[in-house]
């Protein structure tokens, strides 16, 4: 469910990617730093989490799975 929501947000920000399979969203420059700014703002609104600056690293944004894992972890940490 969370992954579907994340894909929806991503498709709204940058429609030209296959988010189901892509594992290199940052490494291959599919998401730019400006896309990441949008994504963070949307994730915070959607999932009621605060994403601190230290989480802005490629490994947290390279795939939908990685993004979902980061959001889940931040939700648990409260």
């Amino acid at each position, binding site marked *: 469910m969370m992954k579907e929501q994340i894909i929806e947000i991503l498709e709204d920000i940058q429609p030209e990617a296959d988010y189901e399979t892509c594992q290199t969203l940052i490494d291959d420059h599919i998401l730019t730093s*400006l896309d990441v700014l*949008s994504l963070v*703002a949307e994730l915070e609104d959607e999932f009621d989490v605060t994403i601190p*600056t230290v989480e802005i690293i490629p490994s947290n944004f390279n795939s939908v799975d990685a993004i979902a894992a980061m959001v889940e972890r931040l939700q648990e940490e409260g």
Partner: protein
Amino acid sequence: MKSYVAPLYLLVFLPAVVFLYNIVPKKLRPVVLLLASYLFFWSISGKLILFLLISTFSIHHFGLWLSSLQEERNRILAETERPKRKAVKAEYIRRQRWVIFLAVCIHIGTLLVLKYTAFFGQNLNSLLALAGVDWTWKIPKMVMPIGISFYTMQAMSYILDVYRETLKPDKNIGRLALYMAFFPSMMEGPICRYNDDAVSLWEGRRSSVQNLVFGAERILYGVMKKMVIADRLNIMIKTLYSGYADYDGGMMVVAAIAYTCQLYMEFSGTMDVVIGSAELFGIVLPENFKRPFFSKSISEFWTRWHITLGTWFRDYIFYPISMSKPMKRLTSKARKKIGNHFGPLIAGSIALFVVWLFNGLWHGAGWHYICFGMYHFVLIASANAVEPYTKKLLEKLHIRREEGGYKCFRIVRTALLVCIGELIFRAGSLRIAMRMLKKMFTDFNFRSFTDGTLLNLGMDKYDFLIVAVSVLIVLVISIANEREICIRQKLAEKKVVVRWAVVYGLILFCIIFGAYGMNYTPVDPIYAGF
């Protein structure tokens, strides 16, 4: 020892430290490095070493202070019910922010006072004169310890990482002291990060034969860039920039290109010497250059040039500003109103503006440095803004970005834009920079290339030929590196005779073609002044 290519450093100090490092027991090796670093610092800045020592003690203390607050918070959190935890966290964030505020005041404050008092004073006096006030502030003369801009940034990254809890503060003050003062990187960087470099610095690993060979080869390559190219171009560059009024726009183009070449060869050459020096001790420092002149855009250029400064600004200025609560709210609202592209562009551009303002000021206290920063801000921000339109236009014209002619065009265009930026950077003031740029665009002609002017700037045909051949050597090595071919590894696989022939060849090349002696003035370490 005013520079890393000084004979005293390369032929006496460095070999002596390497020798001593390898003969003492493992436990004492980091101590040898620390004492050598302080000796190196002392030899350049004398008693100003006190600034470095105070900075080290202070940042060590602040780290432990933050850590004790974090431990206290964790103890309280463990005993607190979930709904009340948010308030505890908020209280401890507030307390930690006070510690960070104090640390920033002391460290950045010292840097600001020492580096910018004169600039501030001159502008204040100009404003007072403009307002008709009959009083001037007698600007106190400040002294700057060598490398203060570099070790202050390392201290800041250390304390901010402790605050963010991505780094445990070090109780061992010796390790922190070596991280702050390590002599190869102290004067011109690269700007190290505690998490990546402090442990290997303190490890005291014995130098292997490969470390010594690879380190020496890298140093030699750096010396070649600095002595044969950067120093040889120096007289011509000094002549053109000090007497710009006597030359036409064509010579201004030469000034821009020659200085960009000199700066790259001087700074990247010094980085080769620095990284090679560290390699002699088995220490891997972060790279500061990755063939910047293969960049296809200005933003890519800054991910390949002075990399550690760029990543510092990204991690401690760009993201903290663009990801701050008000900016996130701005991004969210703007996206809904003006769309996916322009929405995040506002917050991104505000953060980018601050980054480039600080980048300009970091390089020096002068309006032309601020202008240099703003020039890059405008180039990057406008490229971001027009990106969707560029994309559409290229699609319509059936041009692929990463292919053939268009890729070459992008590389050349980026290099030319960089040259203009470096002209602003090198000019003595903003007024001179503007005059030189004006000449470039309004008084350009090829006459001075053919009437003998070019060969009357302190470089004859022989000098130009040496520079051209040397640049070609650097270009070939850069192309190989770009294709991920490690020349030193390839060389190591060759027969001993070939290896020594190449090394001796390079040494002879530096001795024969290096620009030293009575007719030359070697360029001062440019980045040590920042």
